[in-house]
Every structure is written in C-alpha cells, then in structure tokens.
C-alpha cells in the first residue's frame, strides 16, 4: 500500500515535470544554454590544463645537460669520468659523446649541402662531451652546478630558461584555469537558480494551490529539483558533445601540422573530463534549483 502510494507520487511528479518542461520552453532553453556554455568553457579550460601539463612534462623529461670537457683531457680520461658524473645526485643517465660524433651530428644538423669538414680542415674544434639526463626536471639546476665544479669540466650548458618558463607557464595555466572554473561554476549555479526562480514565479499559482489542497513540501519540491537536474544534464550533454567533436577535429588538424606536439588524445583522461562535466551539470542543476526552491517555497 505504501509502495503503491510512493509509485503514484513518483508518477504524478514526473507528469508535472513533463508538463513544465513542455510549457516553459523558452526558460528551459535559457537554462540549458547557460549551463552548456558554462560547462563548455569549463571543459575548454580543463582540456587546456591537461594538454599544457602533458607538453610541459614531455619537454621537462627531455631536458638535457651538455657537459663539455677541457681540451687537455684525453679521450681515455674522458671516458673514465662516467661513473663520477653518474654519482652526482639527481643524475639518471650520462652518455659519452666523443668529439668526432659531435662533429658528425653537427654536420647532420646543418644539412647535406654544407661541407663543414672542408671549411674546418683537419681540425675538429669540438671538445669531448657528455649528455646528462636527470631523474627529475627540478634537479637540473643543482646537478648542472655540481658538474660544473668537477675537475676537467670546461663548460656546462642546458636550457635553463626553457625549464623555468615552462614551470611558470604551467603554474599560471593551472591558477587561471582553476579560477575560471570556479567562477564559471558559480555562474552556472546562479543561472540555474535564476531559471528555477523564474519557473517558480511562473508557477506560483500552481504551487500555492498545491499547498492549499494539502501537498507535502516534498511533493511541491521534487518537480523543481528534477527539472533543475534534467536541465543541468541536458546542458552538460550539449557541452560534452560540442567539446568531443571540436576537440577531435582540432587535435587531428594540429597533429597534422605539428606532429611532435604531445597532445592528449582519446583514453582515460578525456573520458574523465567528460564524465566530470556530466556530473557537474547534474550537481549544478540540483544546487541551483535547491537554492531557489528553499528560498521561495517557505509557506
């Protein structure tokens, strides 16, 4: 008997929701639109964050320290330095690059047309060198300084600027991204709250009549909550759909032009974002409508 009552109540409430969704189409359109736009910008922000993260991480892990040895260090002595270099804290790999190899790679880098060996004659101006990789990009600075003080080392070179800039950029993207996300979340809640309030206002007769004939508060509330959740959900679906297609197209285009750009494509991270946006839509809808219903339904 109680079950039957509950089912009936659910059925009548859904009827009311359907009615309202059909009758307040302009208002609902506005709510769905604002939710979709908020979540869309939020999604763009999230995609930006995960991509710069990924790019930064890739670049970071590729940062190397070039160690040039003194002219008077013999090749034998130079090769013997490997364990010493490896013992410096933070160093992961130390690859010996004999001067001949250095010249060859320089040649390759400058291209086929130039005849570098002719210009230089027999003399190879390059010293023997080591290519060092650190375990952690943050250790580059310290490791380079230590290596620079080792005997036999002439010069240490690494892309310090790049490292520092990347770290800064990454931090900024995170901070701005987070701020934008929070602000937009608040906007979406506010807009859904406003929509619910307008709906409540448009249906204040119905609400007062419901109360006069003895509806419980929850019977009055549920349709509005459900409506908010449905609107939030539809807005989120819209945002996810637009993001999914435009991001797919954009990454395909970008990979074509800049093949080595390490963009996030497919897989877990994207799915997580899309799921998050959907959940976000539901939560925003629920919060927005709850705020208004609480505020305007106290009779």
């Amino acid at each position: 008997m109680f079950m039957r009552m509950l089912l009936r109540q659910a059925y009548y409430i859904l009827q009311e929701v359907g009615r309202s969704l059909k009758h307040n189409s302009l208002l609902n359109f506005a709510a769905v639109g604002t939710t979709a736009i908020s979540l869309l910008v939020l999604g763009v922000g999230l995609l930006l964050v995960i991509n710069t993260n990924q790019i930064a991480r890739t670049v970071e892990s590729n940062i190397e320290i070039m160690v040039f040895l003194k002219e008077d260090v013999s090749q034998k002595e130079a090769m013997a330095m490997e364990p010493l270099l490896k013992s410096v804290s933070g160093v992961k790999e130390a690859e010996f690059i004999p001067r001949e190899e250095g010249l060859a790679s320089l040649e390759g880098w400058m291209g086929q047309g130039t005849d570098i060996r002719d210009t230089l004659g027999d003399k190879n101006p390059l010293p023997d060198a080591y290519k060092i990789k650190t375990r952690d990009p943050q250790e580059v600075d310290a490791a380079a300084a230590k290596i620079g003080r080792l005997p036999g080392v002439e010069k240490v070179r690494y892309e310090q600027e790049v490292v520092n800039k990347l770290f800064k950029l990454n931090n900024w993207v995170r901070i701005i991204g987070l701020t934008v996300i929070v602000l937009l979340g608040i906007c979406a809640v506010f807009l859904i709250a406003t929509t619910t309030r307008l709906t409540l206002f448009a249906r204040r007769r119905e609400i007062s009549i419901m109360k006069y004939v003895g509806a419980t508060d929850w019977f009055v509330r549920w349709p509005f909550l459900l409506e908010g959740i449905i609107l939030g959900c539809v807005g989120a679906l819209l945002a996810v759909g637009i993001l999914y297609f435009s991001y797919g197209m954009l990454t395909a285009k970008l990979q074509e032009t800049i093949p080595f750009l390490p963009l996030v494509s497919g897989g877990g991270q994207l799915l997580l974002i899309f799921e998050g946006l959907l959940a976000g839509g539901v939560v925003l809808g629920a919060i927005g409508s709850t705020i208004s219903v609480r505020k305007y339904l106290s009779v």
Partner: protein
Amino acid sequence: MISFFNVSKIYPNGVRALQEVSLQIDKGEFVFIVGPSGAGKSTIVKLIFREELPTKGQIYIGGRSVIRMKSGEVPALRRRIGMVFQDFRLLPDRTVFENVAFAMKVICAGRSEITERVPQVLKLVGLGKRMDDYPPQLSGGEQQRAAIARALVNSPSIMIADEPTGNLDIDTSWEIMDCFQEISKRGTTVIIATHAKEIVDAMRQRVVALNCGEIVRDEHRGVYANAT
C-alpha cells in the same frame, strides 16, 4: 470541531487584525463570518487553515492544537479542509477535470479513484457537461463551482470560503450559495466569510459579526446587521 480561545493576531507591520477572539464552531454547522472590509474575516480563515499563526491564544481543530502542530503535519490538516477563494484560483492551462483531479493527485489518489470521483463532484456542482473545458471558457459562477468541486473532491470535513461571491452578480451568488447549502446538508462544516448582506439576511444561518478585529455579535439564525 473548531475552537478559538482568546486569539489575537498582530501582523509583523503592527496591524492588530484580531483581538481576544473566542469562537466555537461545531461539526456540521453553517456559519457566516461578516463584517466590513478590514474587520479580520480573512485572518480568521487563514488561522484555521494555518496559513498564519496567532500571536496569542489557542486554536484547536478536531481536538488538535494548530499552534503546536509541526510543519510536517500541516498538509494532513489541509487535506481535511476545503478552501474556496474570491478569485477562484484555478489553473487556466488545465481543463476543469484536470483542475479537480490535481487536488487528488497531490494526495496520491489512484487513477481509477480519480476517474470515478472527479465526474461525481463535478455533477454535484452542476458542471458535469463542462469537464473538458478550460477555466477561461467558463463564466465566473461556473469557475467558482469548479473551485468548489476541487475543494470538495477529497471529502473534507470542513469547507471554508473567503468571499466566494465577491466577484459574482447576485443571481450567480445565489447559485453558489445553493451549492454550499447542498454541501452542508451532507454533514460538512461550512464557514463562509462574506459581506453579501442580502444573502446572509435571507439564509438565516449562524452569523459571527466582526468589527475591528473583535467579535461584536454571534447569533444563530442571525442577520447581517442588527436593525438598531
């Protein structure tokens, strides 16, 4: 059935709408509450319906204190009371049938109960043939009868009307009063706040006269105003 003990109501803006009102209405009675505009008639109706709470005093309905009632119990109270207003308060975008059925859905009545009971009450108020019309298509009197049907559909033990004929001409007002009399004959307590003098004088029912928030007269088989 309904008891007021020294009830005073002062609105937040300081208006003293009722002062030390004591009143006893028994089951099945037919009562007019009369008085000039601003006398406190609507306030009495709102107190019975627990739309407002008194500032002082006690109100009992069916032996239960309205003041000590938790807000969760209010819906149950209202289901035992049918309310009718001067402005009908029908939903214009639903048919007469749906308007009445709405009150049954709110209390989670079954669909078969609804399809049986709604036409029954609509026939009772003389709207058996207008079930599928929308309120704007009806005359004022017909709209008020639809509102009465809605108040009646859940078989309340008390029926309260606040100026139910305030927007209607005298002939239509009589039709509406006949409706209330019919309802009263079936054992429902009927309370009508009104200042329709002719009707009150003709019907010779109990009259509670208010003035400036105080009961100035309470007579059985009374009239709107004393000759003096």
